[in-house]
């Protein structure tokens, strides 16, 4: 199992355990993590699953595709180098302990 911590803008956090292959979005939706809205269900059409990957994990996740970057550019909260669509970020054993930050607003 892979542990992921979701940190809210107010500093509160929630740690969940998921299977490799699941997306960071799916894991959050299953547990009802606030702020991961994921209205399009993972089609890269809504940008409401936007997260910032914690600095400690920079370079450990896979890279963003061009279409993911296009969609992130459309998100409500500012796109940063650490921005990911959580529906495109898949759990792997190497990501055990991943920390992601949830932006203030998603739509």
């Amino acid at each position, binding site marked *: 199992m892979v542990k992921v911590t979701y940190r809210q803008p107010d500093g509160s956090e929630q740690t969940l355990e998921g299977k490799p292959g699941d997306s960071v979005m799916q894991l959050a939706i299953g547990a009802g993590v606030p702020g991961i809205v*994921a*209205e399009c269900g993972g089609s890269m*059409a809504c940008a409401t699953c936007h997260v910032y990957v914690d600095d400690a994990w920079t370079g450990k996740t896979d890279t963003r595709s061009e279409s993911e970057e*296009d969609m992130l550019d459309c998100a*409500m909260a500012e796109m940063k180098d650490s921005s990911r669509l959580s529906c495109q970020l898949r759990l792997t054993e190497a990501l055990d302990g991943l920390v992601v930050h949830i932006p203030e607003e998603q739509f």
Partner: protein
Amino acid sequence: MTGKETTMTLIEGHAPLTPDASIPVLDVDPYDETVLADPFSWYAALREAGPVAFIPRYNVLAVGRYEETRQTFSDHENFVSSRGIGFNDFKLEKPWRPPSIILEADPPDHTKTRRVMSKALSPKVVRTLMDDFRAAAEEVVDALLERSEVEGVVEIAEAFPTRVFPRAVGMRDVNPRHLVDYGAIVFNAVGPDNALRRAAMARAPEVAAWINAACARDRLTDDGLGALVYGAADEGEITPDEAAMLVRSFLSAGVDTTVTGIGNALWCFSQNPDQWEALKADPSLARPAFEEVLRITSPVHTFLRTANLDTEIAGHPVPESAKVLCVLGAANMDPEKWGDPEAFRIDRRPVGHMAFGAGIHGCVGQNIARGELEALLSVMAEKVDRIEPAGPARWRPNNAIRALDRLPLKLIPN
């Protein structure tokens, strides 16, 4: 036409298909008008038949279980859109209008046009439209609250999007009837050669001519969604002709579908007063409520894909050029996925429903549709105490859309 094409006798505009013997045969007519009006037993029969079934009436395959529908619909490499998302195989027969360069296209062409449209319809852009959506929702709703009875389809479902959407696009020409009907024509056209399609084709020349003229750059303001798309042409991302085609896509896919979504939402609430109470108690449920409306009513009930090479569905072989009905409405009612699909629960949060499709062809306008519905439902939740039926609702059969024709309602103000 090449020699090969002229010698082949097409069935419903596509190549004849001999299904693999392992695929169950389902002898139904999903396009019978009584089935279109009440499709739930067809949906159930399709799911029960197997992961994929053969429909002899139209010589096509069909999927309706959640997993296979999602899989097939979003597998754009094996199941393409460029050969038409209806019965006609564009490789074998000329389509009735120049194909859409987003809906009826594959990567890499699709990637380019999709990017332009996602930017024009992004959450950020929709945010700038919300004040207008709310103001318009108040005008529409206030005018109706003084009346004892309203016709929900015309007076709310059609009235609201035809007021806000052309303004958002920046259209100078507005003909609400043509705007609503154009979508209905395009969606009937993806069906088989039945009475609905023939009636749509008979009206198409007049309506399509008006639409094409209204999409020209000089018929648009310079501050709307249309201008954003023409701006992409100035930047060299697409050609001016492509820009005009994409503006046309706003109108085919953005009006009738939203009209349908609103009508279906009002119908759901008129049938489920406890859920209206729940929305009034917590108006922040307006967005998730719309998702549940979409799941349970599936405004776009069926689109097709074409196998572009020999492939398979759930282990059953599927030959190149097979047409596959992806019955989104059936997937949205699959008990395996949803547990209690028949229950309309606005707090369900049905992430992954298929009403906007999935994958690279997932509806690019879904953010604006959500914005419109959020505005309208939250304004209504503030002002309307109860929504009650004032007579029987009637559905309007369409080959791809499940929309209401009539919805008499009583709106009881707060």
